[in-house]
């Protein structure tokens, strides 16, 4: 780094006269900024988990967690989401190796698993509501639908984002912008899986056990 100043030689440098060109994009601050957004998203889920924790036994004479939850179905859904995490990881690996086709294929597979997850969750919700376990039935069910529904909504937005990325990678290949977006989408997708660990453990498993 050659940096000069008009003044005498023993005086320290006050201004960098020649600089790196930032256009290369290698030092983009975006991933850190997006990470901090994800941390704030984690706080939203923390408040929803706290609410659920407080209201988890407020059944108001309605159905209890143990009566309602269908663990094999939840296990299936958990598997869908976990597999979608590893398929997204494969998409990222192909991205770093510059394989555009591989990225698109793995993205599409990830989206299929994500769709399956949302589909199963909607089936579960409709099934519960058909049994009379609606959000209005008890504080426990309000908290349950808010927490699990917010996670499901995040996955849905992730699916829309994957769709957009499929189009954009198709249009422009693995450009600097698209690599950055795929990195951010990956962090988003993996964080949803982390949140799901909390959901299946503290809502479904503990609900069925305790």
């Amino acid at each position, binding site marked *: 780094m050659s940096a000069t100043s008009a003044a005498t030689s023993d005086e320290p440098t006050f201004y960098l006269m020649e600089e790196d060109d930032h256009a290369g994009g290698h030092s983009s601050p975006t991933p850190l900024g997006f990470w901090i957004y994800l941390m704030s998203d984690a706080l939203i889920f923390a408040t929803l988990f706290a609410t659920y924790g407080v209201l988890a036994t407020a059944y108001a004479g309605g159905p209890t967690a143990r009566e309602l939850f269908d663990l094999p179905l*939840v296990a299936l859904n958990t598997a869908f989401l976990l597999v979608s995490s590893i398929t997204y990881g494969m998409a990222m690996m192909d991205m770093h190796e510059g394989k555009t086709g591989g990225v698109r294929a793995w993205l599409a597979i990830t989206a299929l698993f994500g769709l399956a997850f949302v589909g199963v969750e909607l089936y579960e919700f409709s099934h519960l509501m058909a049994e009379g376990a609606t959000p209005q039935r008890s504080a426990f069910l309000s908290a349950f639908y808010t927490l699990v529904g917010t996670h499901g909504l995040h996955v849905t937005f992730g699916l829309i984002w994957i769709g957009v990325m499929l189009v954009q990678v198709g249009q422009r290949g693995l450009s600097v912008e698209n690599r950055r977006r795929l990195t951010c989408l990956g962090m988003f997708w993996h964080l949803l899986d982390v949140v799901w660990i909390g959901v299946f453990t503290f809502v479904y498993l503990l609900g069925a056990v305790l």
Partner: protein
Amino acid sequence: MTAHDHSHPVAHEADHGSRRSYLIGFLLAAVLTAIPFWLAMSGVLEGRITAIVVTVLALVQIVVHTVFFLHVNTRSEGGWTLLTLVFTAIIVVIVILGSLWIMYHLHGNMMPMAPQPPPPPA
């Protein structure tokens, strides 16, 4: 930004892992998911113990996902990723444990102890 930071941009880039680390993470995550589901569905252990084991496994799995899928380590983004994660974890713990603790005490102090007798007829 000093001249030093400019000359070593690589040190600030996010780590992106490898196929191998993804597969290790996936295997660990699969095991850590399978055990709690099996414990809860089979009921081999007593309820309270199952709850404790399941909770501990969930915390371990969160760490596994954070390390192997989200690639958080001390070097990523010059340590800022880890720092923000630690801060968030502190707030998450405060919010969840604080709410549960307060509401547990409130419940103990403010809820009627026994079914109340019906109000006298007016």
